[in-house]
């Protein structure tokens, strides 16, 4: 029997929830509006901002100021690259831990998690020096390696919790039907594992896209992703609200959309399966 809720109560909740929701979202909405304004209008009062003319100029100027799409592409390469390499390493590991758990599996998982707890500042010095000596500073390959390592524990953990949910009996059933190991993996396990792999991938792309310690410290001009490119607005020349807004909108829009799709997986991934 569903709880009976009076309509007035529901209306009140609706008003309260929408008000808070819009307030929390407001900074994003505001830069979206500012990104379609001229620089001179963007610094005006809120009323002036709303009533002034709309323009796409800022988006063009962002590209003109420095090669925006180079940095955008760097972000794509870094987040996709580190995620795919991470998956390639993590899938076999998570797979065997989920289906052939040994005595040490739990310890192993906990140990992997512990590597995620290491603060980046704690290992900044050696990583920086290694990168300098190997000529990896400001290269995409170096950053892909770091981002892979940083997020590998989360990938293994997420995959493990998904694989764990695939029932073992289904394999026995397939085997009774005379399926070979190869077709077992290909036709039974893989289709069941793909949704989990896809969500892991999505969340990991988001995390890598927004990573803002290593990307800021280890890049300069050529390998800098959007996190570092946006940081260059901290010492701006002249009016820059519209340009900063346009650059920000383009930097967060793809990830915001992916994030909205992955909200359920987010909980599982970021709590290491502790909350589902």
């Amino acid at each position, binding site marked *: 029997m569903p*709880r009976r809720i009076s309509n007035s109560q*529901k209306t009140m*909740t609706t008003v309260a*929830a*929408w008000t*808070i*929701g*819009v307030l*929390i*979202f407001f*900074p*994003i909405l*505001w830069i979206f509006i500012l990104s379609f304004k001229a620089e001179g209008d963007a*610094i005006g*009062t*809120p009323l002036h901002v709303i009533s002034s003319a709309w323009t796409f100029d800022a988006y063009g100027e962002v590209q003109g100021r420095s090669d925006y799409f180079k940095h955008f592409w760097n972000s794509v390469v870094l987040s996709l690259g580190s995620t795919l390499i991470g998956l390639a*390493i*993590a899938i*076999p*590991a998570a*797979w065997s831990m989920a289906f052939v758990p040994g005595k040490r599996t*739990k310890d192993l998982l*906990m140990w*992997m*998690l*512990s590597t*995620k*707890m290491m*603060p980046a*500042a*704690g*290992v*900044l*010095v050696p*990583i*920086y*020096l*290694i990168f300098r000596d190997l000529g990896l500073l400001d290269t995409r390959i170096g950053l892909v390696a770091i981002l892979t*390592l940083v997020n590998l524990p989360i990938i293994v953990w997420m995959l493990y919790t998904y694989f764990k949910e695939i029932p073992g009996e289904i394999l026995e059933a397939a085997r009774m039907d005379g399926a070979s190991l190869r077709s077992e993996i290909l036709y039974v396990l893989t289709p069941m594992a793909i949704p989990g792999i896809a969500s892991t991938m999505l969340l990991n792309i988001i995390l890598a*896209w*927004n990573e*803002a310690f290593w990307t*800021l*410290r280890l890049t300069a001009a050529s390998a800098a992703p959007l*996190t570092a490119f*946006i*940081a260059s607005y*901290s010492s701006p020349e002249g009016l820059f*609200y519209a340009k*900063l*807004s346009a650059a*920000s909108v383009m*930097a*967060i829009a793809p990830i915001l959309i*992916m*994030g909205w799709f992955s909200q359920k997986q987010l909980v599982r991934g*970021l*709590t*290491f399966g*502790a909350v589902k």
Partner: protein
Amino acid sequence: MVSPAVAVLLIWMIVPLAMTIWFSFQQYNLLYPDRTGFAGIENYYYFITDFRFQPAIWNTLRLVLGVLAITTIGGILLALLLDQPFWGQGIVRLLVLAPFFVMPTVSALVWQNMFMDPVNGLFAHIAKAFGGDGYDFLGQSPLMSIIIMVAWQWLPFATLILLTALQSLDREQIEAAEMDGASVWSRFIYIILPHMTRAITVVILIQTIFILSVYAEILVTTNGGPGTASLNLPFLVYLASIVDNDVGMGAAGGVIAIILANIVAFFLMRAIGKNLEH
């Protein structure tokens, strides 16, 4: 099949860690390349007695506690609200969740310029409309401003996790309590809160891990200043090792940061480890 993952993580953990510890006991300043050799605990001594160390530790704690207070209490209240039936639940969830996906540098610069700027910021415009003056948030209360920025990013996380936990609560239990005449408050204290304890613990611990290493927000806004007013431990490590070129001292700071994070990690691992039992 586990071995590749174990191998790379092992290298990732041991090599930099060993090097950090090694450097922390060495004389190693890029400005004085001829001064080398064993330094004993000198680096630690200089790091801890540096005039920036105490403010950095206190700011790190204030930052963590400030953000935790806002996000945990706010998250519980928001989760309770969003768990009620209302029109447009799905959309409001998306709106509330959005800040979590904004990259730290964007969040920091947007707050600093479009909202907190004493002349052109939105808050200044609102203050002026009421006859007031723009407040220089980052100049006058830099740490508080950074706490607001970081809390804005993490409130969605706390809300989402707590909402998920709340939704797994058995509705019938609440209804039974309601029929027995339990007040809203006692329902919250005796049923809802105990049910959410584990989720709250996880939210607090995970956020602590991340907020202990807040860096980008400080770099793009205040650079730790004015003076040491918004300097935290990771930022001091960066200043010592990269800006001051004192690798040894930076490494000593790194070791201290690792120890601090490990104290939190210990409790987090226990909370998560319990979950593996069943």
